[in-house]
């Protein structure tokens, strides 16, 4: 491993006149799960979307600072965002498979990447679906429309779709908030497996979920990083009073 960390340095983000992220600096350890928690509107999703430059789609957003991934500042103008997004995948709040077949969904990223070898593609499809624990459920109906799957299956398909391009990092934006408890549990177990292959950064409003799955936790409040550290430590002996109040459910 070349670099074992993803470094966020002095990250500031404005949405028009609003200062959303204020001078955020921390280091994410690779091959781990890092949770970003905080009350609604604290900027946690905004922070997550910096890692794959999703803010590029919005002209009103202005970002200053650095995020160093593999020795390169990904916020730099020189960065090829399309390459970056293949390296840093994303799974969204609401499962969003394309209204195409299960197979087409997984192949999408590979076709974008320009891979043409059919045999190799099918091999990746199988691998990705196996890693996302979906293979056994769908192997006989890969040509069925992805929207016929259940919500939990759709979300695992989205995970498989993100895995197919072989990313280093996968960003999860409240991936279970639209799912039932059982599907949520399955995704949480899956996340613990995924860190074997990828670095996971997950935004969640569910404190329990952060506690169950993450190795490190970042607590954001009003756009500021209040506390960052090992989840176990933070959840038992929070250093900051705000963190303690949030974790004990006194606001949020």
């Amino acid at each position, binding site marked *: 491993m070349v670099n074992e960390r993803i470094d966020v340095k002095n990250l500031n983000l404005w949405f028009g006149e609003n200062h959303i992220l204020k001078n955020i600096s921390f280091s994410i350890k690779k091959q781990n799960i890092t949770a970003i928690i905080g009350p609604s509107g604290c900027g946690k999703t905004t922070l997550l979307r910096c890692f794959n430059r999703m803010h590029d789609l919005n002209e009103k957003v202005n970002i200053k600072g650095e995020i160093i991934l593999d020795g390169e500042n990904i916020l730099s103008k020189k960065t090829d965002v399309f*390459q970056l997004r293949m390296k840093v995948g994303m799974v969204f709040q609401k499962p969003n498979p*394309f*209204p*195409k077949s299960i197979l087409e969904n997984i192949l999408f990223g590979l076709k974008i990447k320009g891979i043409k070898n059919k045999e190799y593609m099918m091999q990746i499809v199988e691998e990705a679906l196996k890693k996302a624990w979906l293979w056994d459920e769908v192997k006989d109906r890969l040509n069925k*429309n992805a929207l016929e799957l259940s919500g939990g299956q759709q979300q695992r398909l*989205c995970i498989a779709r993100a895995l197919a391009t072989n990313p280093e990092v996968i960003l999860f934006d409240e991936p279970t908030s639209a799912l039932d408890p059982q599907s949520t549990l399955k995704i949480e177990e899956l996340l613990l497996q995924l860190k074997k292959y990828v670095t996971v950064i997950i935004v969640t409003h569910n404190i329990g979920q952060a506690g169950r799955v993450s190795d490190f936790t970042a607590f954001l409040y009003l756009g500021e990083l209040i506390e960052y550290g090992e989840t176990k430590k933070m959840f038992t002996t929070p250093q900051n009073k705000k963190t303690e109040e949030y974790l004990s459910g006194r606001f949020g």
Partner: protein
Amino acid sequence: MKRRLFSFIGINFLRSSTLLSISFIFFLISIIILKGFQVINWEFITQPPKEFMTKGGIFPAIVGTFYLTFLSIIVASPIGILTGIFLVEYSRKNWFLSLIKITIGTLSGIPSIIFALFGLAIFVVLFRFGVSILSGGLTLAVMILPTIIKTTEEAIRTVPDNFREAAYALGAKKSETIIKVVLPVALPNILTGIIVSVGRAAGETAPILFTAATFYTRKLPKSIFEETMALPYHIYALMTEGTQAKSQVPIAYGTALVLLALVFLMNGFAIFIRYKMRRGKKW
């Protein structure tokens, strides 16, 4: 008691208005069918007119309407769809965009007879296409363009953003996202705009009045540079310029029935395709 009476009256007002609307459509179709059916037979739809349109069929008019509609659709659809894509996905919000939108809005509100004069000046005279299928088809294309642009815009706008985000997050460029994700999802609704346009292009009389239509011809057009008979104009001609009403008025109703059936048929076909494409697409 009073409130119940009010709601009773209110609901029955709504009910009778609905019944009235339906009965208009019902009577319209029944009258066309009853009067038109008398003259319809195999000869009527396969033969050219005879003896100054008092006998024979309307085959050249059917063919003419088909050519005109087809030409206008294949010209207007690509231009309209591309314009719609540009307006939604690529244009920047400024005064120029507002101007374009106002222009398109105005275009859809212009009476069709004005399009006829425009077609005459531009296609027939300036481009020297003469009174021909080409001139008429292009005039109809200009007329249906705003409808296709607007429905394309609507169709693209209603594609949920989370599909776009999913594509971008996988490293897709904007063009790839539009071609591989947005357009396939929007296509059934774009098709709806084209369906409506087919009906309008086939049925409008005014735009082809000076640009394509001819009163009476026994032969079929050999190329798009020739003038042609067309169903709506044929009805108009029979009702206004005929001298033997007794035999010509029934033919007009027969022609109307054929036109109606043709439009229904084309719509039915397009709705069938849309249904096929929409199956299993719930989000």
